[in-house]
Each structure stands twice: as structure tokens, then as C-alpha cells.
């Protein structure tokens, strides 16, 4: 092995290792973007003609939940394929980050239950149920950005927080459309941006 061959082997192996061990974020953003765009979009279609506002029918909620669960499944496959066999501090960081999702959403559903119990109107519940998940997701993305020093996660998370607040002001019906287009669209735009930038 002469120095040229050694240098070429190092470069090729380093590329191989990076691509095998790195989590492909566009493959994570894509299913989330699609789930939000389609799920929240369908929910918006189901409530936009309601006079007065009554809240989304069960079918629309079920569609959104199924799409979100599918996104969770795709994320787990992408993450497991990259991190299989890797142990140590990074695995613990990943596990704690993973736990932030059920913790955040369980607390949010608890709060929604409390609001409903204490006489919150359908309008208010619609706003909390729509904007809450967008805000929780946004904050968890900002947390992920801090763990993995990834600015795409930071900007996506910050954007989702803005979408949640702006959407809440728009009311329970328009909030769903804003969440679908700006939230789901934000994921898809970031996936596209990263895919184009990393194209060899």
C-alpha cells in the first residue's frame, strides 16, 4: 500500500462510515411532513364548513393519529439502521431524547383533559389540541439541535414554535390549515433542502 492508496482508502472508508452511521434526517423529515400535511389538511377539510365550530369528527382524528404513528415507525427504522450496534454516551443521549416525546405529549393530553374538565369551550380546546402538538414538537426539535449540534433541527423547531403561536391566533379552523401547510410544509421543505445540499 503506497501513500496514495492509503490516502484514498482512508477517504473512502471515512465516507462509508459517515453515511452508514449518520441518521439521514431527510428520511425522518419526509414522513413527518407528509403526515402533518395530509392529516391536518384532512382535519381542516372536515371542520372548515362547520357553523358553528363543533370540532373534528373522530374519523379525521384517527387518520391523523395513524399517519403520525407511521411517521414514528419510519423514524425508528431510520434511526435503528444507523445506530445499530453503537453504544455509549450517544446512545444514552438518543434514548433520553426519545423519551422526551412521550413525556411531552402525555403532559399535553393531560392538560387538554383538565381544560375540558374545567369548562373550556370547543374553540379553546380546538386551539390547544392543534397548536399544542406543534409547539411540543418544535421544542423537542430545538432540544435535538442542542444534543446533535444540528442547525436544521433548530430552525425547524423554531419555525414550528412560530407556526403554533401564529396558528393559535388564527383560531381552531384556520390553525389546522396553517399547521398543514406551514408545519408539514416546513418539514418537507427542510427535507428537500438537505437532500439537495448533500447530493454528491
Amino acid at each position, binding site marked *: *500500500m503506497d*501513500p*496514495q492508496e*492509503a*490516502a484514498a*482508502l*482512508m477517504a473512502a*472508508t*471515512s465516507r*462509508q*462510515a*459517515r453515511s*452508514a*452511521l449518520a441518521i439521514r434526517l431527510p428520511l425522518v423529515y419526509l414522513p413527518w411532513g407528509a403526515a402533518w400535511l395530509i392529516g391536518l389538511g384532512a382535519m381542516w377539510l372536515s371542520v372548515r364548513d362547520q357553523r358553528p365550530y363543533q370540532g373534528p369528527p373522530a374519523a379525521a382524528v384517527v387518520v391523523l393519529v395513524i399517519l403520525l404513528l407511521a411517521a414514528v415507525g419510519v423514524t425508528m427504522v431510520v434511526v435503528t439502521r444507523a445506530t*445499530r*450496534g*453503537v*453504544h*455509549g*454516551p*450517544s*446512545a444514552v443521549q438518543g434514548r433520553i431524547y426519545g423519551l422526551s416525546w412521550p413525556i411531552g405529549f402525555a403532559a399535553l393530553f393531560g392538560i387538554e383533559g383538565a381544560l375540558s374538565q374545567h369548562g373550556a369551550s370547543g374553540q379553546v380546546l380546538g386551539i390547544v389540541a392543534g397548536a399544542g402538538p406543534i409547539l411540543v414538537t418544535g421544542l423537542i426539535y430545538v432540544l435535538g439541535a442542542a444534543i446533535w449540534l444540528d442547525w436544521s433541527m433548530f430552525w425547524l423547531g423554531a419555525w414550528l414554535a412560530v407556526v403554533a403561536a401564529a396558528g393559535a391566533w388564527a383560531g381552531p379552523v384556520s390553525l389546522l390549515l396553517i399547521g398543514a401547510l406551514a408545519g408539514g410544509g416546513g418539514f418537507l421543505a427542510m427535507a428537500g433542502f438537505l437532500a439537495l445540499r448533500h447530493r454528491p
Partner: protein
Amino acid sequence: MTEPPPELDPVIHVPARLRIVVILAALPVSDSISFSRLQELLGLTAGNLITHLRKLQEAGYVTSVKSRQGGAARTAVSLTHAGRAALQQYSATLRQLLDQAG
């Protein structure tokens, strides 16, 4: 008078071992990788990988820790600080040699 050309670390300067060290260096510091995943990334036979890992271990560049989880033995391999430094040195020497060659 010309200086003798710098020498490449013979422990690392073997294709299989160079690849092992580069892959381990791609992991975050103090992370380890399972023997089987490492074997899969390298495409080496288990026996071959064990031989090369032993050489790297004897030089103090790599540690491997055996653990038992639910009855199955698992070996986790990681790069030591000395190993990371040796790869940096190797890479610097390589650049020097390539520069000299012109």
C-alpha cells in the same frame, strides 16, 4: 544532507487495520460499536477481524469489552485516546509523504 522519509505507523499501515481505525474514529468520542456491526461495515470474516483487532489492542489503540446480555455474549469495540492520536499522526505523516512526492 536529506532527512530520512517519515515512517508510517506499521500497526495502522495495513488496509484492513486502517479501515478499522477510520471507522472507529468516525464514532463520537467514547462510543463503542458491536463486533458484529463492525464486521458488517468492513466485510471481513470474524476470524480475520479478531486477528487485526488483537494487533490493534496490543498496540493500545483499541479496547474491546465483552458483556453478556440475556445470555448472548457481546463484544463492544472502541478506539482509545492513543488510537485516535495514532490515526492523527498517521494521517499527518501520510500528508507529508504525499507533499514530498509532489
